[in-house]
């Protein structure tokens, strides 16, 4: 991942970026929670719901900076191969039989990716205030990551055949 690069962010822009990241991350966790509910995977649904709530809290805080989220793209961040914003869980990682451990591992990846992104932005930002903001954010994401890592360590490893489909998919229409 390349981040920041020559891009010069104003403080205002940086807040917009932050808001977009947190907002999108929250929406995504909600979406995943919905999916798990529809598929009767209650434990993972509530976990995603919690994650969504955390991200949304951040977003709401950032929103007080008066930013809009229209059309922020990974490529605006020069994130190279990544298709989505750093904290957003890719939809195609969901599975209806996924376990809380899977969900946390996914959240961990998101946090780590976000942390790396901010590290890179902090390293590259020419503007002091932005640099500081980015460094703060990086630290926060590292902290989140550590928390999740700890929580994950407390969970049992999912069984090897966790995704074995005991009920064949059904015909429809």
């Amino acid at each position, binding site marked *: 991942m390349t981040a920041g690069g020559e891009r010069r962010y104003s403080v205002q822009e940086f807040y917009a970026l932050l808001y977009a990241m947190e907002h999108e991350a929250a929406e995504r966790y909600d979406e995943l929670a919905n999916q798990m509910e*529809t*598929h*009767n*995977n*209650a434990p993972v649904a509530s976990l995603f719901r919690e994650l969504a709530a955390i991200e949304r809290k951040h977003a709401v805080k950032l929103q007080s900076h008066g930013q809009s989220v229209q059309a922020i793209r990974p490529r605006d961040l020069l994130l190279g191969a990544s298709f989505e914003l750093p904290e957003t869980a890719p939809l195609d990682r969901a599975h*209806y*039989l996924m376990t809380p451990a899977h969900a946390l591992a996914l959240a961990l990846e998101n946090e780590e990716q976000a942390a790396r992104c901010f590290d890179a932005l902090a390293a590259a930002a020419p503007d002091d205030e932005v640099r500081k903001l980015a460094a703060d954010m990086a630290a926060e994401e590292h902290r989140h990551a550590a928390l999740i890592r700890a929580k994950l360590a407390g969970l049992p490893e999912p*069984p090897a*055949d966790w995704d074995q*489909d*005991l*009920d*064949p*998919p*059904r*015909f*429809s*229409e």
Partner: protein
Amino acid sequence: MNRDNAAIQSLSFAIVGSGGAGVMTAGQMLLDAAARAGLCGLMSRSSGPQIRGGEAAALLRLASTQVESHGDRFDVLLAVDWQNAHRFASEIPIDARSFVVGDPAEGAVPEAFSAAGARIVPVPLKAIAKKVPGGRPNMVALGALGALAGIGAETLARAIEATLQKGGEALKSSLAAMQAGMAAVAEAGVSLPRLAAGQAAGRWTITGNEATGLGAVRGGVRFVAAYPITPATEILEWLSSALPRVGGTLVQAEDELASINMAIGASYGGVPSLTATSGPGLSLMTEALGLAVAAEIPLVVVDVMRGGPSTGIPTKSEQADLNIALYGLHGDAPHVVVAPNSIADCLPATQWAVHLAETLQVPALVLPDQSMGQSRIVLERPASLPLAGARLVAEPETANYRRYALTPSGISPMARPGTRGTAYTADGLEHSERGIPSSQAGDHLAQLDKRARKLDHADYSRYWAEIEGEGDVAVVTWGSCTAPVREALARARAEGVKARLVSLRLLAPAQPERLAAALAGVRRILVVEQTHSGQFHRYLRAAFDLPCETRVFHRAGPLPMRPGEIHSKIVKELAA
């Protein structure tokens, strides 16, 4: 045990749980084990709207003799979990005599079920499974149900082994979990009456859709073209492996227009051919069906009926494609419509349809429904049918060959491409005896007469209907209503009602004289069918002479017809 049921000694089990909980697997193994234990049985499935996951229910009925439909109530409802299980409430009627087996850790029994006042049997499926390394709650459930059904541990083990053929750890933990489930039931001290068992040897287990496929192959079908559609796809999937092994072919077509026309092409070429679909696909086939009528091409079209109209309820059953099957062709287009009257009958009914299509050079429709097609039963190995005879083929170098010659029987020899001296052009335009397009009134009438005549003169032998019992009242029905009607009649007979059962296997051409004979001396009939508008009854009025007072019980799907509701109607409408 269904104490209401004088006819069938049976026990009904429902297993519910959310997707991935393995209720279908457990149900399948239970049926298999029961079969190995010398019981007969039936299993059908139900599930939520999700493609995968969501919630699922396996519905079983085990019995001493062959069962073809569900009863009125379930003896046991077992829930691996209760997620969205309330959606199945109308499909799983329970009462005060039922047992509801649930894991207390999964919460209370939902209102939709607890209201019945059944005896709640808490079994901590999850906790029990946890104690077994790699154990799963559905295998505990299997053990519990096996114990309730009176199936021995060894037999259950054999059923598990047959599914988990790879063996290893998974097998070991499944066996252990199953045994723990049996133990839990013993501990809970609940039991059900024992079913008398017969001889497992020689029996089969088969779904209606597989039986349809096999009926086609037995009948000689060697070419199939089709487009997937629920609930007919399993016929195709079974045939796609089976056909090549007997020298036949299956082609997946781009759509139903193509599939039926491919089948027509192959049949024109001399190879008995079939396509299978459901309502929406059948709609797309009626133009070509008319072509097969006019050009006199033998052809079998299986329509596994589902809920309609339009896309409707693809995964549920209804008998409402009767109208389109009988009348869906433009112009006067006589053809054959055959309906199996049970899951097992899918085999002989389809085989007979092939026979009729080939003999009469006409398209024959076969109308099973979702409840037959997608249910699995245990039955004695089906006997071979003595259906010889087939297509009347023209001899090489027939002098002055006329493909559509006006024979007394209406059947004219059909030349096989490749044969010298009998080349002709098959045509969907009205034609002369030679097949040359004609708009002359004489040719039109002659060919219309011929096409009607061959169906009128055909010998439909005893297959045309199933006729059972004696009495001055009768139930007239067809298709998947037959089994619950039979059961309802058995109860009524036990209560002293003398009644006949007439179930039509041949729907078209109508056999009014035969029906009149079957109903001779009957003073009142009850027509039973699963449609909203009473299609079958209207057809009986249109094409038959109903000799007596007629009452009707018709209702829409998707819930299966129950013996009990039919029994009440019999009591109300016939016994009075």
